[in-house]
């Protein structure tokens, strides 16, 4: 190795024999397992050295050496001063190091050579030659390698050696416009990634979909990996039906986005091959901040964001309540209709304050941060508060051979009154409130009940009605609270045994404790709140233990470099908890377990006792590179999953292979081509099945009877396999001013694990099968243009384009379709051969086969198709486009992001309800026009061009003719915009404040095109079913705010 390096021509780097810093740097390079390429970049180092020679024109001709005083400032690439940098005379003993401000001064012979060395940085040497001031910018080792990404298992690799698509997003980019769930910030910034957020307001979950849905019944969300270790991201969302659901946020949203250094998105299965099952849907690798050697800084950031609802439903103002006490607005003309909605939604506020301290000495580096998030939603009493504490310590021992990395996180989060999903939420009765009826009389939601001597609900519908939900009552007297305490503790130790061999051990505990309570006060709908109120409480603990051991061997054989990894990991997940809920309370509005009638069938208790899953794995990887332009990767992994016990296939193996070449190094290409890289990979990822499916058991019900489990045991299953092929190229032109990254991929998910409903006459109502083939294919294109700055104005732009086509190729033998999800209102999500994932099925109106006209009954009621439901649409976009721009002029930066999702159809149950109740603008207009203009036909063949509005809307909506409520899901929006101003560095020079930036930020600022009545990105559920459905979803939010960032 040393020989190899020394023979490189013109290498301006000096390698002392016994320099421990050098040795360490050398090791760390090896562990990055790519070819060391100092040649190309070596020259550029010189650009970073600034000299000043004495101004005197006269230079004395002195032959004898004479000591002169040399001083200077050592900084990193960002201009931050580095403390503790060693400054020595070459081959001499004399030396010093930089102080905390990165300054040094040394007295040396005039003609000597100074060596600047520092851990993690490329050593530089400079001949003094009369210079009295030598400022040096040291280049990080990693910086030499071009773009570095963190790949599987937390290993840093040069992006050029990776055979699959990997997209890196820096922490800065994510934090331009802070979010309570920072994953929302990824929208439009990464090709092939679709983000949709849950309709549950502040603190809600997000659905991240990479390259389309692959699994029919498993999670389609990616695996989150923090510093090489998997994270729990169990969704807390519960959406059993469109009637009612809840979401308490997901695991990823708990993190402090300010702690994120960068995020790498590994989209294909190849990337995931080493992570195993959970990674089949892609991996999001999060690299957190650490202290850096020689840099000591304090960073404070504060942002305030105000949210407002982006749209409101279109209501009619002309027709009143059907009759006194009626829920409907099909009545006579009214003039008293008012806007009840605008006042109801508040302005939401989010305040995030974060402070971090980072410092680093040679042997130990520290990063400490604290952040505090407080927010209130647009609904009264919906609030979130979160505290994040983080300590990250890195230290080296035993002559730098042993490095230990410890990271501890503690998160405390409280989410209050996250709104219900579905019909039983705050806004249903707000929207449906009879037009013309005075809403003001219900703004105080309580009224005294002299008989019961208590406050009860003030509303026009009685508690017996499921519509007994005064929206203000719901805000105040339907309460829920989720308290989360989460601890993450990680320790990694790495020992360099020899120059080419290292051993690493890592362990992690991620423990989440959730306490959830819900209180429905007496006076709410009896079916939920009972007569005396409802109380529910549960306490759940979810723990993930992760451990791995890895042996890494790396060596050069002439022009060939080989790196091998051998390892094993264990992933042990446990869920524990108990819960009880009851609406049989003895005394009204006392929310304690003691107040529950435990014998009542309306009291439900449950326990999750030690739900224990374990995945063990052994893996190996070998990477070979030739002459720094040809790279070959092969991996293999074998999993043993406890969820597969009771079957003969408890273990499964899957391999991956990839190749990548840098053409501009291998061949002579025209000057304009600055980069031409081709890559291709093929991978298989296996997937396990959910817990207990191989071993369904019966349960004891209340009363002591045994309840037979209608699920068939799955004794002959095979693990799911996703096979993925990916081809891509990266091109750079004109010194990389123009960059193009193109990827084509195709994945086949076979042996799919399906939980299917079978006719109950078969003996079971649900069974599991392995079958089918779901294919996803698509292209991703990222194009960037960053012209070289001419003058003060700089501009860079980036376009992300992606498209995904999903086809269900086959299902189980003899089966053409499976129902993924359904509700009792004619919504079906069906997986059908030839169809694609997420297809929405339902009913349409009957059309006359001859004329195509809508068939009506004799009294002009539209007829609905019967029998099997028919295809209505698919909510997934045909393609997505994101366009980001950044302009900077002197100290100002302006950036904006426009993105669009094109194609797809979504279903709005909200519109259906508005029509049903006669409150929608459409029903008002139809009544104004004397009916709905249609092209209909009566049973006797007579044509009808207009039907009564009530007949038309009431029949279509109460018959749940979903086909009438499908909308184009295309949406183009200004996603983000920000203007920031940084105090000029001149003004801050040597001051206490090193950097200060103030930004004005905005999010979801305008819809440029949105034909649907709601934002199709807001999902009723982040699960597999119910996507693309609006069931009284909270409107999307429009946000503006300010952000202040100060570095001391």
């Amino acid at each position, binding site marked *: 190795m040393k020989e190899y390096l020394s023979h490189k021509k013109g290498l301006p780097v000096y390698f002392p024999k016994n320099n421990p810093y050098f040795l360490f740097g050398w090791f760390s390079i090896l562990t990055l397992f790519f070819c060391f390429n100092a040649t190309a970049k070596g020259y550029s180092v010189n650009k970073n050295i600034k000299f000043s020679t004495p101004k005197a024109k006269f230079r004395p001709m002195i032959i004898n050496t004479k000591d002169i005083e040399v001083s200077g400032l050592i900084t990193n690439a960002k201009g931050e001063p580095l403390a503790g940098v060693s400054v020595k005379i070459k081959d001499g003993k004399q030396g010093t190091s930089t102080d905390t401000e990165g300054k040094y001064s040394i007295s040396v012979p005039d003609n000597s050579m100074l060596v600047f060395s520092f851990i993690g940085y490329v050593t530089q040497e400079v001949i003094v030659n009369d210079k009295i001031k030598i400022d040096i910018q040291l280049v990080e080792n990693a910086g030499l390698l071009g773009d570095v990404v963190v790949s599987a298992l937390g290993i840093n690799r040069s992006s050029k050696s990776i055979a699959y698509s990997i997209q890196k997003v820096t922490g800065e980019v994510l934090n331009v416009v802070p979010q309570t769930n920072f994953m929302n910030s990824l929208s439009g910034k990464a090709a092939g990634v679709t983000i949709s957020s849950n309709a549950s307001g502040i603190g809600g979950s997000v659905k991240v979909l990479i390259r389309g849905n692959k699994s029919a019944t498993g999670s389609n969300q990616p695996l989150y990996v923090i510093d090489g270790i998997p994270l729990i991201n169990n969704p807390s969302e519960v959406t059993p039906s469109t009637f009612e659901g809840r979401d308490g946020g997901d695991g990823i949203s708990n993190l402090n986005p300010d702690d994120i250094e960068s995020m790498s998105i590994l989209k294909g299965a190849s990337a995931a091959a080493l992570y195993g099952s959970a990674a089949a849907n892609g991996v999001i690798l999060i690299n957190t901040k650490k202290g850096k050697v020689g840099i000591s800084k304090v960073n404070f950031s504060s942002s305030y964001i105000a949210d407002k609802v982006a749209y409101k439903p279109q209501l009619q103002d002309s027709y009143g309540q059907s009759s006194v006490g009626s829920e409907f607005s099909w009545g006579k003309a009214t003039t008293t209709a008012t806007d009840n909605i605008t006042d109801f939604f508040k302005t939401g506020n989010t305040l995030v304050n974060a402070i971090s301290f980072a410092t680093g000495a040679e042997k130990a580096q520290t990063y400490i941060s604290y952040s505090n998030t407080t927010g209130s939603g647009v609904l009264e009493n919906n609030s979130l508060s979160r505290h994040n504490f983080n300590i990250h310590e890195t230290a080296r021992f035993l002559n730098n051979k042993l490095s230990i990395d410890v990271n501890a996180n503690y998160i405390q989060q409280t989410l209050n009154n996250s709104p219900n999903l579905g019909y039983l939420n705050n806004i249903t009765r707000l929207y449906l409130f009879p037009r013309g009826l005075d809403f003001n009389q219900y703004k105080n939601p309580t009224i005294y009940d002299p008989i019961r001597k208590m406050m009860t609900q003030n509303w026009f519908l009685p508690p017996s009605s499921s519509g007994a939900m005064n929206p203000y009552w719901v805000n105040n007297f339907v309460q829920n609270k989720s308290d989360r305490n989460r601890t993450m503790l990680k320790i990694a130790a790495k020992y360099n045994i020899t120059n080419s061999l290292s051993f690493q051990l890592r362990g992690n505990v991620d423990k989440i404790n959730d306490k959830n309570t819900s209180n429905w006060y007496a006076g709410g709908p009896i079916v939920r709140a009972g007569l005396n109120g409802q109380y529910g409480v549960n306490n759940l603990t979810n723990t993930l233990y992760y451990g791995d051991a890895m042996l890494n061997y790396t060596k050069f054989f002439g022009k060939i470099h080989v790196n091998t990894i051998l390892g094993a990991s264990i992933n042990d997940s446990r869920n524990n908890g108990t819960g009880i809920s009851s609406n049989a309370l003895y005394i009204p509005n006392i929310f304690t377990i003691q107040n529950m009638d435990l014998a009542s069938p309306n009291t439900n208790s449950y326990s999750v006792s*030690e739900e224990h899953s374990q995945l063990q794995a052994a893996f190996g990887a070998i990477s070979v590179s030739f002459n720094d332009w040809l790279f070959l990767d092969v991996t293999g992994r074998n999993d043993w999953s406890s969820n597969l016990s009771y079957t003969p296939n408890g273990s499964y193996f899957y391999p991956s292979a990839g190749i990548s070449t840098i053409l501009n190094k291998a061949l002579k290409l025209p000057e304009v081509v600055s980069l031409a890289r081709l890559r291709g990979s093929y991978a298989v990822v296996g997937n396990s099945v959910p817990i207990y499916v191989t071993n369904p058991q019966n349960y004891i019900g209340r009363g002591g009877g045994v309840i037979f489990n209608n699920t068939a045991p799955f004794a002959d299953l095979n693990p799911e396999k996703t096979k993925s092929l990916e081809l891509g190229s990266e091109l750079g032109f004109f010194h990389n001013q123009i960059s193009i990254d193109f990827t084509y991929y195709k994945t086949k998910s076979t042996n799919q694990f399906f939980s299917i409903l079978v006719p109950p006459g078969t003996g*079971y109502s649900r069974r599991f099968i392995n079958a089918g083939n779901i294919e996803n294919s698509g292209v991703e294109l990222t194009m960037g243009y960053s012209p070289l700055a001419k003058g003060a104005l700089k501009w860079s732009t980036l376009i992300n384009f992606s498209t995904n086509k999903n086809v269900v190729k086959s299902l189980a033998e003899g089966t053409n379709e499976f129902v993924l999800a359904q509700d009792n209102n004619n919504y079906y999500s069906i997986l059908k051969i030839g169809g694609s994932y997420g297809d929405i099925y339902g009913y349409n109106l009957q059309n006359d086969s001859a004329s195509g006209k809508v068939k009506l009954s004799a009294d002009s009621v539209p007829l609905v198709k019967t029998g099997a439901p028919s295809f209505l649409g698919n909510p997934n976009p045909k393609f997505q486009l994101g366009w980001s721009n950044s302009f900077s002029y002197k100290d100002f930066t302006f950036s904006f992001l426009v993105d669009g999702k094109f194609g797809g159809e979504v279903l709005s149950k909200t519109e259906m309800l508005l029509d049903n109740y006669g409150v929608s603008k459409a029903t008002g207009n139809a009544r104004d026009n004397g009916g709905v203009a249609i092209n209909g036909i009566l049973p006797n063949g007579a044509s009808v061009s207009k039907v009564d509005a009530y007949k038309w809307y009431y029949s279509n909506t109460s018959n749940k003719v979903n086909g009438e409520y499908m909308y184009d899901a295309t949406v183009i929006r200004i996603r983000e915009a920000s203007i920031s101003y940084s105090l000029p560095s001149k003004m801050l020079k040597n001051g206490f404040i090193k950097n200060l930036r103030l930004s004005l930020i905005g999010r979801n600022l305008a819809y440029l095109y949105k034909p649907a009545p709601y934002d199709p990105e807001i999902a009723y559920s982040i699960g597999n079913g119910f996507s693309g459905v609006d069931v009284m979803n909270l409107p999307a939010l429009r946000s503006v705010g300010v952000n202040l960032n100060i570095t001391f």
Partner: protein
Amino acid sequence: MKNNKFYFKNRILLALLLSLVVFNSCTKKFEEFNTDSNGVSNTQLIPDNNNIGGFYPELQYSIVPNNPSGANSLQGVLGEYHISCPFAGYLTEAYPEESPGNSYNFTGWDNYGLWGIGYNAVMAPVNNLKTLGTPASSPDFWAIALILQVAEMHKITDIYGPVPFSKYGLGGTTVSYDNQQSIYTAFFDELDTAVNNLKKYIASFPGSNPFKKFDVVYAGDYSKWLKYANSLRLRLAMHIVKIDPATAKQQALKAIDPANGGVFTSNADNATSKGGFNLLWSSSKQWVTIRAGAAIVSYMDSYNDPRISEYFEKSSFDPTKYIGLKQGYVQSGYLDLLKFSDISEKFAQSTPATMMTVSEVNFLLAEGALRGWNMGGTPQMFYEAGIQNSLDQWGVGGAAITYINNSISKPNNYVDPLQPLNNSPTLSTITIKWDDAAAKEENLERIITQKWIANFPDGTESWTNFRRTGYPKLFPVTASRNNSGGTISTDIQIRRSPYPVSEYTNNAAEVAKAIIILGGPDNGGTRVWWDVNGPNF
């Protein structure tokens, strides 16, 4: 240095070996991990025969769904009280919905019949008991399972027509349907087995009571289970009287044969499941989505029936009157709908669910006797006993004599206090007092009408009787509210339920064959096998 290297190499080797050992031993616990500690295995249930008997409480609670575990609540509420009861004129949905019970519109409701309960909550555990070897190991327990299976599955086939039965439980992803005649034949065979097993057990182990712990109906009294089996046989015999009179008569005689243990003779024999969660109460008091039917209130009110206050509350239109809501009413607001008579407060959450009563048996015997079969008495005798037993059952037996002798009162017209469009003239002039001189047809109406009043709230059985005999005469839905698209006749009313949509999505090929067996389109206008379009005599 060399030593050092060796040392490290060995350490790594050791670590690798260690991890291999760890792997080999760790997977041994996998089966334990993958076993839900909240579940119970058959082995764990062996003590006290729970591995067999443990399934019986939920089974019994599923016949008229009132499971204390909360299982089947929604399907039970909707299947029994929102679908069957409106078709029987007992109850009307007080809910402004285009549902089957209100307007013959099954769209979106297809999956809410009793289908799921029949297969998942009854057929499945019974099949499991069979797999566990119950027929051989515990023939007495097996007898009860068969009785319960017949009690449930006859409702399912009566509602839908051809359904899966003989090929039940073969696994796979599809199942074929049987014609209804063969299913009835199988029911009679199963009852034979049940009766023989119980007779044998009682003779061999007199006084033995092994089922007591699991019995929520008869506290383990096998002689009563025998009577229930025979009473069920009598009910089924009468269902097929028009399509197969010979078998009907033969089975009816077998049912009452004292050698087989006889049928119900007193209210103490009634089959009721105790300790459950009454879903009629739930429909009325928790869901608040049902009200008294116009038909039953009109009959009972005009007859001055003492049971009316046991069944219903007075209305809030006029607190002195019982006013029912007509099936297929023209739209009113929900608040207005709630003003119609509610279910009586006497139906509580813990009120036992009635599966079959002695009064129904009396009326079945009366009909048999009217048909000239030797039932051991005259039609009048059985008819009057039926009324007496029913009134006794509801605690108003003192009024029986007056009631039985009422020869004047005839059913009232129906007047909707809000919506004149819903008004209906009475369709019947039937009186209570037995009239030997009257035509057989009139006396059949008399018997079925009284049986209907007595059978409340067993909507499924009463809907079957209505379809079989045309009695009682029920108000049709308001014509404009017949939203069946012309498939269901407003006059002769609904004849069956269409198959659940889930069968179309999951078992499509077999449903297509079933429709051929059914012999008509899969809608509410097609008659099932025993529903013969012809005279009663």
